[in-house]
């Protein structure tokens, strides 16, 4: 399934690959919010999510020459962009583990004392438990769920991003939902106890 935005961003990215860097502005306008939400839901950190979005667009420009070669063999603009996003996240996670080992406690305390607007809204609607359950889901399960439920990507598209069949993606989504349900149920019991 290729949506019209994806098709036009494909044309724009081809223009960028030919040297028209200004076309990147329209791609940024179309994509920076979904990308931010993807990173925020995986990291839970505003600043880190914004850094990663910036990094993805810089990488898209950097790797612009590879665009046509890669999309010819492995799908759409969407799949290409999310593969770059996943690599950027993996690189950042490696660096972050090294940098934050000593300061982990401090980061946690900052998060708990300065809730983001997102946290506040979620608590108001009693969705905080669901949000916490999502945060507690193992990374790989959270990622496939975020791609399917929040990024609204079709399963065959997610398969191209993760490098597997769409049937495998459906199985993973089901298992992620099952585990999310179990965590959510445990958190609900803790709250009422």
């Amino acid at each position, binding site marked *: 399934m290729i949506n019209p935005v994806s098709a036009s961003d494909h044309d724009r990215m081809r223009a960028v690959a030919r040297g028209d860097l200004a076309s990147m502005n329209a791609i940024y306008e179309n994509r*920076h*919010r979904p990308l931010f939400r993807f990173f925020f839901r995986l990291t839970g950190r505003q600043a880190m999510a914004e850094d990663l979005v910036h990094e993805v667009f810089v990488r898209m420009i950097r790797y612009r020459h590879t665009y046509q070669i890669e999309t010819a063999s492995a799908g759409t603009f969407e799949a290409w962009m999310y593969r770059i996003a996943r690599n950027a996240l993996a690189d950042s996670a490696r660096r972050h583990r090294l940098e934050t080992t000593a300061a982990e406690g401090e980061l946690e305390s900052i998060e708990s004392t300065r809730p983001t607007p997102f946290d506040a809204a979620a608590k108001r609607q009693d969705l905080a438990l669901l949000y916490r359950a999502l945060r507690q889901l193992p990374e790989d399960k959270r990622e496939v769920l975020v791609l399917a439920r929040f990024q609204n990507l079709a399963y065959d598209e997610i398969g191209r991003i993760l490098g597997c069949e769409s*049937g495998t993606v459906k199985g993973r989504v089901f298992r992620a939902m099952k585990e999310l349900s179990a965590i959510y149920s445990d958190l609900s019991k803790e709250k009422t106890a």
Partner: protein
Amino acid sequence: MTCPHARELMAAYWQRELTVEDTAVLRRHLETCPECSAEMTALGGLWERLADLPAPEPSHTLDARWRQTIGILTSAQPARRIWWPRSPVWGVALAAACLVIGVIAGMNVPRQNPEIAKLREEISSTREMVALSLLEQQSATERLRGVSYSGRLDNMEPDVLTALTRAVAHDPSVNVRLAAIDALTKASGRPEVLQSLTQSLPAQESPMVQAAVIDYLVEARDHQAVTALRQLAAQPDLNPAVLDRARFAVSQLSR
């Protein structure tokens, strides 16, 4: 139908990707399997509730950073090629016509005031000083501005080239390194630039910078870089994307 297959169909149903035929197949299975039926109800409800989680929004800082980055990168781009006929005959004819027009125009235009020429030289020199000064700043943003200034200079003097190649090799910010590589596009034929970039390759840790240097060397058709590129490709922990680029570069430059 088996339960594992039914679970795949459930996931497709939640995502609204299930065909009418498969929906009927799934319904029939749910009527006969209480376990799958219970999962469909509980997990389907949770799937719908996930849509109620608010969508987080990026701050305005992100837009500002992007505008700055794209501004620097576009201003550092080399000018587009001017139109020129493909046929050599027309090319020679057009060149001859331009020459005649130029000679006639030159004979009729008063000679340039030497003071204006000197002033232009001084302005160019001042721009160069500003660029060099900015490249020495502590702040990465200021150094990016310095790179941007350098990219706008009509003629890059050796000290500007040295400052840019030094930035590619040693600047702590990846963005400054990348912008410096783009700014150096104007000087891609200079042997000292190619040599410096090639020498910087083994010490580059960022895959993005590695890929950018490789692309630069390929675009400049620097055949002398093949040995360094082969050594880079032999590094055991090299990023797979960079490895592909390095191999591609070796194949291109070995021809």
